[in-house]
């Protein structure tokens, strides 16, 4: 199976690969997938004033999984929380030209975005009101 040029580009030049420092403020982390399934994605967002100012990923998985998460971090940067919620796996499929057997990679990326947003929200809710 040949990969699309965009998948190859993200694989060779992953955007925003890495992790935020432990305990960094305003960070939400989503970790989805399982090693037995062959994909695990860790996606992190850093939020200031309801806007995602930075995003990072680490992925164990095939080239399409790596590309999907790399693309997701690119898209997340600069978006508000509400806008980020609207990213759909089908957008990723379209942008990366993923074949049917790789659609699960895009689903995983959407799950990772949702998980990171939920984690951020949970942490924000737990904080005392005056520090929000």
């Amino acid at each position: 199976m040949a990969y699309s040029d965009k998948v190859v580009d993200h694989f060779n030049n992953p955007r925003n690969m890495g992790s935020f420092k432990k305990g960094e403020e305003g960070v939400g982390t989503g970790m989805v997938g399982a090693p037995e399934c062959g994909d695990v994605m860790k996606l992190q967002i850093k939020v200031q004033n309801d806007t995602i100012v930075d995003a990072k990923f680490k992925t164990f998985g095939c080239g399409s999984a790596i590309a999907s998460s790399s693309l997701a971090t690119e898209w997340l940067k600069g978006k508000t929380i509400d806008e980020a919620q609207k990213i759909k796996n089908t957008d990723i499929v379209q942008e990366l030209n993923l074949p049917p057997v790789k659609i699960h990679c895009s689903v995983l990326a959407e799950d990772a975005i949702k998980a990171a947003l939920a984690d951020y929200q949970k942490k924000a809710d737990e904080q005392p009101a005056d520090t929000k």
Partner: protein
Amino acid sequence: MKLPIFLDNHSTTPMDPRVLEAMLPYFVEKFGNAASRNHAFGWAAEEAVEQARKQIAKLVKADSKEIVFTSGATESDNLALKGVLEMYREKGTHIITSSTEHRAVLDTAKSLEAKGLATVTYLPVDKFGMVNPQDVQNAITDKTILISIMLANNEIGTINPVQEIGKIAKAKGVLFHCDATQGVGKIPVDVQGMGIDLMSFSAHKLYGPKGVGALYVRKRNPRVRIAAQMDGGGHERGMRSGTLPVPLIVGFGKACDLCEQEMATEAARLAKMRDHLQTDIMAALEESYLNGHPTNRLPGNLNISFAYVEGESLLMGMKDIALSSGSACTSATLEPSYVLRALGVGTELAHSSIRFGLGRFNSDEEIDYTIKKVIEVVTKLREMSPLYEMAKEGVDLKSVQWAAH
């Protein structure tokens, strides 16, 4: 050195130019049908076929009359299992095979089972991928008519104790079929010494052309009979009808002849290159695990799992080297290699496996390049892997509640 490098010699092998040369006259000039008994065109073709049959038989220590030409090892496996079962149905319908056989054997067995024509025992293998002859012995019942165990595995290269299994089969009066596709031409094969009654193999795995294979069918002690699975002109002593592909057969013969002459030196050279590849990679990369038997394996085979990185992404990172992975992402199903699973390799490590298949035309330079590239790509992908990060932080990955999808 030319890129890409072909290190997938278990899937197929490049044809030896000497084989092509031998084949060429049989396309345009000597195009006759080997079954035409009445003219020079037919005689020339028949002579070439019989010459090739001798070359092929010699490599596996068979009699040339015991070689039945087929389209390849898949057909040979099908013909052996279905042909024996149909012929000896009255005597019994039980087949013994193993869980790491090639799909051509496993799926044939399953199809016979599904049609209610056979009962099948799938023997487990040990952690190196070897069948225990004692298990074979124990599985035999008075209904057993066939044992089908492969010589060497296509993924992990492990060589089975075929000779011992042959002895057991003989003592119990059960026929023994061996899928020797990966072994013939790579390691010595002797159908007499190994007690093999039927044996499948194929030309394109030993530097011959694609589209031709053989089924060895023992002629005496015992005389094995199989029911033809294809009706027609009654070629190949009635066992396999169809006009013989003369150029392919000539190539198959030449390829076997070359293997016979060069196997010993070639095997030693490949084993040395393989050991170099294995030693250097495993010394440089922590948590890399050898799959298969450490010593009792095909000389050109190496199968390693690299913890925390996924096989398909590894292949993608090394796209100028042709390799194969047991990762599920390379197959239509989402299950990783059933062979590695049968060895007890964990699913995550099965996803992380790479098979290196060295062959006649690989050079030391290519191996050095591969070593460098593997180390570079595994290191890069581990940097990218959340699992590696967690492991480095001391998280026990087995204790994590994964959100499986």
